[in-house]
């Protein structure tokens, strides 16, 4: 028997697989494909203080082994999410992680505090790294002091464990990680998307209306692995790894690099069953490479 369970701050996961924020909505659509109770946890689409419409379309573009997106944090606002989306997800036997975003410190604080009102959310994922928010969101994610500050504010406002989601668009990912750890983060979530662009030749302009978008998918996996490998050696808090995962073998690669659990984003679009299938496949892959549990594999790829 291969043991897939893993304990993280605030989260008792029956397996390390969760859908990544923004790629699974609030679970309704994918719940028609399989029982979400199977998942290690669900990470919801970003919540902001008020409803946001997001960016103009086109919002996505395809790239080699990846895609760009500039959704712009479209969401119905934190109150509506707590009212209608959280109760829906609470029907399933799986922890709920709320991804929170904002343009200002006050908005982050408000959103974090709002989730205290429900006892159905188990952790916050603090999204300081969405490259598609114009008003200042991006600075939180690329400056260690700003990142630490917003982490402190959110920690103080919330009674939930906080996983800070790091941006890969930085010179020194370790200093970002250490800054938020020191500021009280209970865990890290990495990586968010890399800022990219595609130019549409016929129209001679960026294809995505927002011009830039976030690059996700298999293309970015080597960058995610490198960053997790480096960061996991420098912090003492667990990492939820993500970036290009498509298979159980990819999951093991993330575990070996130092992640304690993983999230799967873009791959849901190609295969709506991907999380479910990976959960089925994972014991075989762990066994094949000589592991008897997820726990055992964490960080085992790190050589000194």
């Amino acid at each position: 028997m291969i043991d897939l369970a893993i304990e993280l701050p605030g989260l008792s996961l029956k397996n390390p697989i969760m859908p990544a924020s923004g790629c699974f909505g609030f679970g309704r659509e994918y719940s028609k494909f399989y029982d979400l109770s199977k998942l290690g946890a669900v990470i919801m689409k970003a919540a902001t203080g008020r409803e946001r419409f997001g960016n103009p379309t086109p919002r996505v573009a395809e790239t080699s082994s990846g895609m760009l997106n500039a959704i712009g944090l479209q969401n119905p606002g934190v109150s509506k999410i707590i009212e209608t989306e959280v109760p829906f997800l609470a029907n399933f036997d799986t922890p709920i992680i709320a991804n929170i975003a904002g343009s200002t410190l006050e908005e982050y604080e408000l959103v974090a505090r709002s989730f205290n009102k429900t006892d159905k959310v188990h952790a916050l994922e603090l999204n300081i790294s969405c490259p598609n928010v114009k008003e200042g969101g991006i600075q939180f994610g690329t400056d260690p002091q700003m990142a630490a500050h917003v982490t402190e504010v959110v920690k103080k406002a919330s009674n939930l464990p906080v996983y800070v989601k790091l941006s890969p668009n930085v010179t020194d990912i370790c200093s970002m990680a250490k800054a938020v750890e020191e500021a009280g983060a209970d865990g890290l979530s990495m990586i968010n998307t890399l800022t990219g662009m595609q130019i549409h030749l016929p129209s001679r302009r960026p294809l995505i209306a927002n011009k830039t978008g976030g690059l996700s998918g298999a293309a970015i996996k080597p960058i995610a692995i490198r960053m997790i490998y480096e960061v996991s050696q420098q912090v003492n808090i667990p990492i939820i790894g993500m970036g290009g995962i498509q298979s159980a073998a990819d999951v093991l690669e993330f575990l070996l690099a130092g992640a304690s659990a993983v999230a799967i984003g873009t791959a849901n679009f190609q295969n709506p069953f991907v999380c479910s299938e990976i959960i089925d496949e994972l014991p075989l892959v762990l066994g094949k490479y000589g592991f008897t549990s997820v726990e055992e594999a964490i960080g085992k790829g790190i050589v000194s």
Partner: protein
Amino acid sequence: MIKAQMKILTKRVVALDTIEMNLQNDYISKHALPGQFLHIQVGNYTLRRPVSIADCNRETGTVTILFRVSGKGTNELATYDSGKMLDVLGPIGNGYPINLESPSTVLLVGGGIGIPPLYYLGKTLKEKGINVLSVLGYQGKEHVFLEQEFLELGKSIIVTNDGTYGEKGFVTDFLDRIGLYDCYYSCGPIPMLKAVSAKLKDKQGYISLEERMGCGVGACFACVIPTKEGTGYKKICKDGPVFKAEEVLL
């Protein structure tokens, strides 16, 4: 909607860069409604390709698609031969509302590669005893397809932009000439949809929209369109691709 394997039964070039494929799948053929689409995995491309259902045969369990060869995915799809299995999500979206009173007449207004879904719609309406008129626009003679099929549904005007076949001009130039009808259904490029819905603003109408898609199932917010009454929005993949003409902001 399901995720299914569909076998390519036939492949045929029906016009310049335009391919027709018959795909087999019982469930999808039994559930597909006019206006719905398939989300097709081509090769290993990150994103699936949305393609409308152009016809459907419940008896034989087949679904027809027609697509224009334009970019990487449709180029690769065009190389697939019969016998090959396609990985498909479908049928997706809300189709055209077809609960009309029987003795009524509808107008179909199609442009280019927006024409195929109107055929399945027209066929279904005709089977229900509704009169079907069509105005169909193509770039030029070599782009024309499904002409005969639409003629069999009822009166039909073919328009080409360059006048190399049928009437010369835009579909909007011929909406007055087709006769009387109770409501219209349209699919085609956005500029055409704008012109059609502006011209026919006093008629009840339904339009089918396209947008670049991520998930195709309503989860990623890639394909939204603002609604007319202010801050709202609809997802084209899940709430559409068909909307009331007055509902959305083009």
